[in-house]
């Protein structure tokens, strides 16, 4: 005989405040080190920056205390730290190159925190999102396809993942990610039984029946379209990866994942063989250090990033003391390489651990929450974050071909920052529900 007793959860708001304090010190110190090493240290600017950061963090903390008192205590400090370290590094590259990305990024970060607060205030129960399952699906697909509209979409660096209107440009794919997670969660929670049903057994695994393959093939086709027409391997892989991950969570069947990965491998190989842009990315990945590939410029960025990280070594050159600006797009696609150079392997591992903590908290919320939709939503958002980090870091470190995705919270980019703060808001909302003592759950 066994008894199951529930352990009362500490909301952890105080631990959060303490961690926030540490995060604040890191954020301000990062900026001060960058300024000092550029012989540019102005105490007024640092004080103003620190005050701004403190206001945002305290505002986020108090809103959470009011509207989601049981939400996860470590997610916000981790996210603030990543965002702050990212801003310091972007500021550092600004100083070297004379650009003004950091100011824009600070504005976007403030807007991101405001968006997160707004989402938390407006969405008091994540289950409401289930009503918009199919709306979210349509919106997600439209957002993904928007860059293909002539006159609206623009091609930057060979990938057509941007839209430009009224002088502003944005990456709709970042927001499409969230809409599609909502859609998959709503769809799978209703249809998972059909997908988990019996099928032929092969090699010890139960495979899905051909007639149940429809949704998988549809999503695969959409991912392939993104890869072929937007020439963006990263978005395609992310989109398909999120679906496979959520499908696995919903059905508990590895065969779906294997089938899906097989399909994607086939599609990816086909694309690599036929589409010149994708092919050059594969070339740069496989033959990065060949003299031909390098001198033709295909792998120049990648190789410079690798050398940058190598010169960083174990402990890095110190913030503001390396030369990350030698790498093209050091502030966005290659921020991981920049940080690797200046913080070294030690610092990069700390950053990756922060991502790991965020993803782990997403899955923990998914385990703890009681409704199926919330489980799939939280795990889907967790997968989105994990896969995106893997694609970015894998691309920069030459584990997989380089893609146009950006590191969440670190890299320069308004759409990415805003979208990821919304992801955090949703995760906090689900974790609040998951950690609430059972008698309070409606």
């Amino acid at each position: 005989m066994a008894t199951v007793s529930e352990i009362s959860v500490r909301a952890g708001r105080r631990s959060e405040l303490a961690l926030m304090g540490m995060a604040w010190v890191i954020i301000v110190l990062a900026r001060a080190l960058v300024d000092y090493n550029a012989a540019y240290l102005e105490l007024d600017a640092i004080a103003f920056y620190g005050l701004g950061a403190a206001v945002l963090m305290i505002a986020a903390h108090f809103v959470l205390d009011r509207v989601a008192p049981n939400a996860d205590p470590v997610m916000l400090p981790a996210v603030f730290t990543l965002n702050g370290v990212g801003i310091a590094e972007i500021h550092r590259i600004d100083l070297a190159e004379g650009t003004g990305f950091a100011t824009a990024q600070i504005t976007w970060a403030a807007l991101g925190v405001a968006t997160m607060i707004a989402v938390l205030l407006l969405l008091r129960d994540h289950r409401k999102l289930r009503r918009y399952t199919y709306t979210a699906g349509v919106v997600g697909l439209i957002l993904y396809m928007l860059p293909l509209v002539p006159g609206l979409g623009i091609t930057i660096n060979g990938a057509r993942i941007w839209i430009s209107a009224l002088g502003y440009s944005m990456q709709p794919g970042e927001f499409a990610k969230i809409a599609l997670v909502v859609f998959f969660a709503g769809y799978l929670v209703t249809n998972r039984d059909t997908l988990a049903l019996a099928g032929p057994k092969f090699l010890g695994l139960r495979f899905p029946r051909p007639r149940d393959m429809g949704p998988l093939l549809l999503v695969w086709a959409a991912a392939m379209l993104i890869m072929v027409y937007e020439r963006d391997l990263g978005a395609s892989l992310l989109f398909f990866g999120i679906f496979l991950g959520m499908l696995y969570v919903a059905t508990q069947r590895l065969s779906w994942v294997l089938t899906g990965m097989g399909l994607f491998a086939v599609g990816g190989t086909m694309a690599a063989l036929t589409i010149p842009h994708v092919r050059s990315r594969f070339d740069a990945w496989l033959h990065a250090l060949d003299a031909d590939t390098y001198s033709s410029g295909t792998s120049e960025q990648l190789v410079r990033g690798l050398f940058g990280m190598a010169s960083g070594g174990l402990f890095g050159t110190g913030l503001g003391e390396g030369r990350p600006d030698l790498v093209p797009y050091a502030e966005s696609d290659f921020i991981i390489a920049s940080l690797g150079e200046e913080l070294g392997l030690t610092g990069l591992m700390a950053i990756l651990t922060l991502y790991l903590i965020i993803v782990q908290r997403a899955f923990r919320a998914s385990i703890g929450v009681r409704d199926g939709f919330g489980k799939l939503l939280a795990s889907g958002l967790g997968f989105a974050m994990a896969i995106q980090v893997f694609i970015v870091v894998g691309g920069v470190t030459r584990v997989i071909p380089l893609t146009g995705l950006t590191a969440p919270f670190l890299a320069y980019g308004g759409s990415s920052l805003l979208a990821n703060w919304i992801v955090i808001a949703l995760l906090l909302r689900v974790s609040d529900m998951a950690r609430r003592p059972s008698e309070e759950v409606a």
Partner: protein
Amino acid sequence: MSELSITLLRFGFLILLWALVLAAIGVLRADLYGTRVTTRGRGRERRKPDNRANKVAAPSRAATGIRTGSISTSSAAVGHLAVVSGPLKGTTIPLGTAPILIGRSPTCTLVIDDDYCSAKHCRIFPEDDGWRIEDLGSTNGTFLDNQRVGDPMPFKRGDQVRLGATTLELRS
């Protein structure tokens, strides 16, 4: 600033970054929430019987008046009934002024899931200054200190009552 302090700050930043990571993990470790499964039963009877009797029991019984968790000292004067062996080992019931019915039937105060128990096995009730125990015509009998209980017998502090695989003790 000197070269030394720059180096110190450089390493200090990395240490601070890791301090945050480790502190976050520390918070997570203290944050094990969800449910805890405690196995109870015959397999563990041999080990520290007294210690175990004071430990956690099913929380769902809290509503039925059966106390769970450790015993608070405030009710020491009132006394309570503790299950010291059997499937419900560790459960305690505070004794008030109401009689307590023990048996397999769900209407009993203490429901014992044991084939050697009758539906309404025995009753413990207050009389005069103390408590008395009475068998309600059970098949396998109620034994107070190895003596079969029939008519109401005085049930003193420290006495042990055995019914089926369960042993109950009156404690203060």
